[in-house]
């Protein structure tokens, strides 16, 4: 792996974390295209992204707990229920052809980009509201 590849991966990793902390997401939306650019297949990039999310949300949760913004019972309930959805998702993702999975992801990216652009048009994006 060349030095420029490492710089690219570290920069986009940091940006993903910034996005994660700021918007309360895992950062996967940036991890996946970064990992594809590094040569992983779409499915391997998605699976690897989920592992990269773990240190990201651990750090983010630790800080948000400090700010008093975590409702633990709600988080636990959501997390436990999500396991069933995640198991179904693995079946779907592994059954889909690689190029279809990649196009689905690209459409999701466009949708999130549009949502972010729309939100910034209004007076305040939601992280700034009380």
């Amino acid at each position: 792996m060349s030095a420029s590849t490492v710089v690219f991966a570290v920069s986009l990793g940091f940006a993903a974390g910034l996005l994660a902390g700021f918007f309360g997401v895992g950062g996967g939306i940036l991890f996946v295209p970064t990992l594809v650019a590094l040569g992983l297949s779409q499915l391997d990039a998605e699976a690897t992204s989920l592992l990269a999310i773990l240190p990201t949300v651990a750090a983010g949760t630790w800080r948000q707990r400090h700010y008093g913004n975590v409702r633990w019972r709600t988080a636990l309930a959501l997390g436990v229920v999500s396991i069933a959805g995640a198991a179904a998702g693995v079946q779907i993702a592994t059954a889909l052809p690689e190029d279809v999975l990649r196009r689905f992801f690209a459409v999701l990216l466009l949708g999130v980009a549009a949502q972010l652009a729309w939100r910034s048009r209004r007076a305040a994006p939601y992280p700034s509201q009380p």
Partner: protein
Amino acid sequence: MALKLLLIGLVAGLFSTVFGVGGGIVIVPLLILLLGFGSKVATGTSLAAIGITALAGTILYAFEGHVDVAHATLVGLPAAAGAIVGTGVQQRVSGRALTLAFAGLLASLAVWLLVA
């Protein structure tokens, strides 16, 4: 409340493994819209919930041999540092410029994925 949480959790889990994301893009807006959470509490709670979702997804995919630990470390560790900065920034600024910058970055990545 319980039914809404069930719905949000299931959709977030499905999104998580189909797209390789944490599910926060589903959890944050739905906690705000369906359960009336404030935005900062929604993002904080989302991060904690994603931890469980992503752990389950990682284990499920690892069984099928799709998880690349070296690459996950390469992007995941700088991301942990980024998350600490991001949560700090969230407490202080409205972040309009940051939001627009992310929108531009994601849109260009989407175009690249579609044409590549």
